[in-house]
């Protein structure tokens, strides 16, 4: 990654060392065939979501005279009720869905991990406070909140992401809290304290790497959840609004046409499924790859 040409002999040994960890992770990841396939699928999909619409002769909100068409040579995915090309809309929808999903997954992971770690590590009133907040968020009727927020701030991809993140962080916070409760009793934490490490360092440098596996899995599951939830919201008319397409609202729009043109539901639907599945496989592979004791990688 960085320029290693001018390093001294000793520096070089450190470089080898750093590389060898990355190398091990890669070796372990590579053996997880399904995860590698999933990663390839995700890369291909993501690239195509950004590139394909530019290559299309139609704009995603352009209305053509051919409305309600089944797949044809001119419109491989068909067109919708007012004649917009569904190929370009599906790929644009993929772009927005992925953007929302990543935003939600990353911000949720950040908030959830931070709060979970603090609650689990410090315990006492901090834990009680965070746990109560988690319970409150879980008790709140999510749809009612979403409805209110959607009415107040509209339904841009950004506001939808923020709302979803605010509702979804509790899951990861609970997982991380539990893991921290378990790990803080481990003797290596006491050993780190006896070596003079302060709390922040113990939490983020000593314990956090140990819980990365489950956190990565949760994060990937969240990507799937976010895509599906966004679809659900769109279906209820609370998600991202027209003309901005997402995979979710494309399915929602097509619900009337399920008999006449089932492809309108199946095509964006199968993209949702493909993304969610791939991300879950990727998470599985990453979890195993990031765990140094999950056998080998070394010969």
């Amino acid at each position, binding site marked *: 990654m960085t320029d290693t040409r001018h390093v*001294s002999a*000793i*520096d070089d*040994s*450190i470089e080898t*060392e750093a590389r*060898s*960890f990355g190398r091990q992770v890669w070796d372990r990841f590579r053996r997880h065939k399904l995860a590698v396939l999933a990663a390839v699928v995700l890369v291909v999909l993501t690239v195509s979501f950004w590139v394909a619409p530019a290559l299309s002769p139609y704009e995603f909100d352009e209305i053509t005279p051919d409305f309600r068409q089944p797949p044809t040579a001119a419109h491989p995915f068909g067109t919708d009720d007012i004649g917009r090309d569904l190929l370009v809309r599906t790929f644009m929808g993929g772009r927005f869905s992925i953007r929302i999903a990543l935003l939600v997954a990353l911000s949720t992971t950040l908030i959830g991990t931070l709060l979970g770690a603090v609650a689990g590590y410090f315990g006492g009133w901090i834990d009680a406070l965070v746990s109560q907040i988690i319970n409150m968020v879980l008790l709140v009727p999510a749809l009612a909140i979403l409805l209110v927020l959607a009415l107040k701030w509209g339904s841009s991809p950004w506001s939808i992401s923020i709302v979803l993140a605010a509702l979804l962080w509790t899951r990861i916070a609970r997982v991380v809290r539990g893991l921290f409760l378990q790990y803080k009793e*481990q*003797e*290596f934490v*006491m*050993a*780190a*304290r*006896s*070596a*003079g*490490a*302060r709390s922040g360092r113990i939490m983020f*440098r*000593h314990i956090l*790497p*140990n819980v*990365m596996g489950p956190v990565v899995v949760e994060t990937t599951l969240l990507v799937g959840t976010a895509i599906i939830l966004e679809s659900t919201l769109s279906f209820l008319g609370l998600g991202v609004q027209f003309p901005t397409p997402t995979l979710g609202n494309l399915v929602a729009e097509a619900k009337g046409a399920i008999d006449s043109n089932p492809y309108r539901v199946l095509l964006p639907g199968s993209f949702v499924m493909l993304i969610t599945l791939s991300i879950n496989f990727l998470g599985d592979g990453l979890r195993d790859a990031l*765990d*140094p*004791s999950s056998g080998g990688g070394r010969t």
Partner: protein
Amino acid sequence: MEVQGLTVEFPTEDGLVRAVRGVDMHIAEGEVLGIVGESGSGKSVTALATMRLLPKRAQVSGQVLFEGRDLLTLSDRAMRGVRGSDIAMIFQDPMTALNPVFTVGEQIVEMIRAHAPVGKPLAWKRTVELLDLVGISEPSRRARQYPHEFSGGMRQRAMIAMAVANRPKLLIADEPTTALDVTIQAQVMEVITEVQKAVGSALLLITHDLGLVAGIAHRVQVMYAGRVFENGATDEIFYRSVNPYTKGLLRSIPRLDAKEKTRLYTIPGLPPSGLSRNEACPFRPRCEFADAVCGTVPELVEVVPGHQSRCHHTQEVSM
């Protein structure tokens, strides 16, 4: 280091557990002090208390003087500077005391860099030297391995390397060999004492195994129910013990020259609960010398210079 009147109490639902009840202890530069006692005698709690590693609910009083400073009143920040630098600890279970997601070398480098402004390359070089010092072969390759690639004895060696990384003035070893195979125990003890001599630190060796301290410690302090019961030079304790509890412990050591089919001696009964408010000698119910005088806790009195015992019947016991 000098410990004076150290008392540790834990509030529990059943009342205050008094784990350590007024322990005095001193350890000179380069000295090896063995602390011996049964489970629950307060020996580990004493060690953790001196490093302020007990949970917050523990109520600690007394003084822990280290180079003129009372560690119990230091700021948290100053205390972090002491831990790992002036005083370092070797833990009981090397299986869990190393962080599973970092290489052994990374963990030692971290220990060095936490207390000294050393660059990574230099710290790495020192790490390899340390691993070599504790008898790990191919140290530069081994340093790049993870704890799970080490055997139990190797991990404990790595822990020792980490503990002495900053040349601490005091090394606390809390049951360092309990979790290891018997065959490895002697080797690890040898490494500890060699390294301790090489670094020139004092060693506080906490164990329930009298045999372990015999060849190593200069002095031995026997603890029972949170109190020091006998304290003296190792030979004094082993050959001229005047305390019924120490004598019981000594008789409980398996001997090779024992007659066949004799049962191993055990001290009858169990140690008292830490909740006990009883004013009597805590060893009274298990002691063959017990009588009416034992209704009060005896003082720790000097028997011969440098040898103290806590017993009302010192005269009879020594006969």
